[in-house]
């Protein structure tokens, strides 16, 4: 693959000396080519290493956290070991209870019980107090009827489901968080079932994320069309001016634009004033901190990402076809739908995918102009990371978002090639 050029130059040579010289030359060329490659790689390497260390590894770490499960096994190693042989049909043996008594007493002494309690609480609500109480008042491991001692502490220690939860959390790997991210869980017998209704929130969040993104994408497409069309058909001077009008908001800080929408859409804001003045409404209506605000502000932010690819497709469309269609008697509307629109499809597809990909990852705008019921997937990822410190859940939701984005981006790059994203 390297030296085709060199071969091509050397093959016509028939003279013996030249052939020897040619071979040497060929080797030298090959070496030079190799050196060039090494040099080129040397230039790429610093950024490559930097991106791997500062970006790829952290994300790999996040993905690892979504399946890692060591909190319980590090706090209750004996219990986990004793539970290995437990089939789940009836209550575990006394051995398991004794192991748990030792583990919990040790956890209390080391102050590590809360980590295990928190992890088990993700699985079954109320587990935190169960574990913390047991750690505080752990029965002695030498107790004659150890089971009764535990059950006396809390009746739940006499339930299979409790031990099944401990066993599920025995690690070192788990599908608990990933299943939970799509509202699934293992039941006591190990099969995958839907989580109880009151805990099923993530499919809802995912659905909402897709719904908002889709609406914003369609709104953007609808609004981008006339602007892109005008830009592509007007003389350069007008088109340039229009482009600047599109790029100015594009380049304006996201937070500035969000702040502007807060100001415009508030109860005493210009939009409400205008609507009241025009008699559309009698009293100011709520336009912000609900889904109206989210849709308006997100469409505003993402609209340029639709206009730019649409414009570059439309600019390449030759006007001849439309003229031909019309001169052949097609009414303009028909010519538009049957001749012009199909030629726009690549731009429409690229713009829609781009806007949708960007929309599903949105965090800042919904967080600032949405209500509690309008928060998207990213909000929950951030929430579980910083507020409720459930890193496994945050990572699993992150994995879902990352996978979705990657699949969509795969389609996008098939369509338009790499690197066109965000640059217009």
């Amino acid at each position, binding site marked *: 693959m390297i030296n085709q050029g060199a071969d091509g130059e050397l093959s016509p040579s028939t003279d013996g000396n030249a052939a020897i010289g040619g071979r040497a030359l060929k080797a030298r060329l090959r070496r030079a*080519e190799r050196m060039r*490659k090494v*040099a*080129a*790689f040397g*230039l*790429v390497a*610093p*950024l*490559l290493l*930097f*991106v*791997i260390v500062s*970006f*790829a*590894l*952290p994300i790999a770490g996040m993905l690892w956290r979504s399946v890692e499960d060591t909190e319980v096994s590090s706090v209750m190693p004996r219990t986990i070991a004793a539970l290995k042989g437990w089939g789940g049909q009836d209550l575990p043996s006394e051995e398991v209870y004794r192991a748990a008594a030792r583990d919990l007493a040790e956890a209390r002494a080391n102050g590590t019980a809360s980590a295990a309690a928190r992890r088990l609480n993700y699985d079954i609500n109320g587990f935190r107090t169960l574990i913390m109480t047991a750690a505080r008042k752990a029965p002695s491991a030498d107790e004659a009827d150890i089971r009764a001692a535990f059950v006396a502490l809390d009746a739940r220690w006499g339930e299979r489901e409790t031990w099944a939860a401990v066993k599920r959390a025995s690690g070192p790997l788990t599908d608990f968080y990933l299943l939970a991210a799509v509202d699934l869980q293992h039941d006591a017998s190990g099969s995958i079932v839907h989580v109880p209704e009151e805990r099923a929130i993530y499919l809802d969040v995912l659905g909402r994320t897709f719904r908002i993104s889709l609406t914003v994408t369609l709104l953007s497409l609808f*609004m*981008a069309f*006339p*602007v892109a*069309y*005008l830009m592509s058909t007007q003389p350069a001077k007008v088109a340039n001016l*229009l482009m600047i*009008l*599109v*790029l100015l*908001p594009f*380049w*304006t*800080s*996201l*937070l*500035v634009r*969000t*702040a*502007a929408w807060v*100001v*415009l859409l*508030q109860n005493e804001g*210009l939009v409400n004033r205008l609507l009241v003045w025009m008699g559309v409404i009698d009293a100011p209506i709520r336009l912000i901190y609900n889904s109206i605000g989210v849709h308006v502000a997100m469409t*505003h932010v993402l*609209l*340029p990402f639709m206009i730019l690819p649409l414009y570059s497709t439309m600019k390449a469309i030759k006007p001849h076809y439309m003229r031909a269609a019309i001169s052949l008697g097609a009414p*303009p509307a028909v010519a538009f739908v049957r001749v012009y629109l199909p030629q726009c499809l690549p731009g429409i597809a690229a713009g829609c995918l781009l806007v949708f990909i960007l929309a*599903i*990852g949105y965090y800042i705008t919904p967080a*600032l102009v949405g209500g509690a019921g309008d928060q998207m997937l990213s909000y929950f*990822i*951030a929430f579980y*990371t*910083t507020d409720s410190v459930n890193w496994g859940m*945050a*990572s699993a939701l*992150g994995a879902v978002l*990352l996978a979705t*984005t990657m699949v969509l981006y795969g389609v996008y790059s098939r369509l338009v090639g790499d*690197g066109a*994203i965000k*640059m217009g």
Partner: protein
Amino acid sequence: MAAPQVPLTVSQRLGAILTWGGAAAVLFFLLVPIFAIVPLSFSSGNFLTYPLPGFSLRWYEELLTSDKWLPALRNSMIVGVSATIAATVLGTLASIGLNRARLPFKPVVMGLLLSPMIVPVVITAIGVYFFFAPLGLSNSFSGLIIAHTALGAPFVVITVSATLAHFDIGMARAAASLGAPPLTTFFRVVLPLIMPGVASGALFAFATSFDEVVVALMIAGPEQRTLPREMFSGIRESINPTITAVATVLILTSVVLLVCLELLRRRSERLMTGAN
């Protein structure tokens, strides 16, 4: 280019009206938030409503004297400038390397280099949040600068690669054949010609860092609160007119960036056509 003057049919006229009307309405939608927020920053009143009670510069005074906004601006500049320099140097070198030889796994390498631009920022942010804490990089300028460099570098790779695609390699060969050492060739011939691409990449990288809030929310400590970070809490807690003054300053900044980019684009076009 004028087509022969045929009187427009009714539906053509309707189409034109719809297009112009629709485009005007959309452009109005795009621009109105920006123009609505600027006058409020000159209001003498406490409320973010029209009509303005009077003109004053009190919010700008507040901006300049507060102990919140100026340090935030300083932090943003520290992070933005450092990240831009790092991203530009690393990104330019990488683009030249990618352009120079047919490297194995080039699509994979390119995909990896561009991925910070594609992956949702919140994922980058939590990845970095988990990863940096044990390394002592959270609550530090270095952590924020490293993360922003990774986010900005793809833009440099894209703009410089685009410029290099039109670069006449004969120029560099000519310099080399005339005896210029590689470094001299690079600094005296290649770099000046690809400078517009490098500079626009740098502007993109700076704009990315200067407007980045998700990573800053996660890993910046109180000492590193950047301008977007302050704006985020400002909008969330109590939006007051000082924010409109900050917003106006930021809008001016983006106008300046936009003008610079346009000038660079024109210069790049001139350089490339001049080279042929």
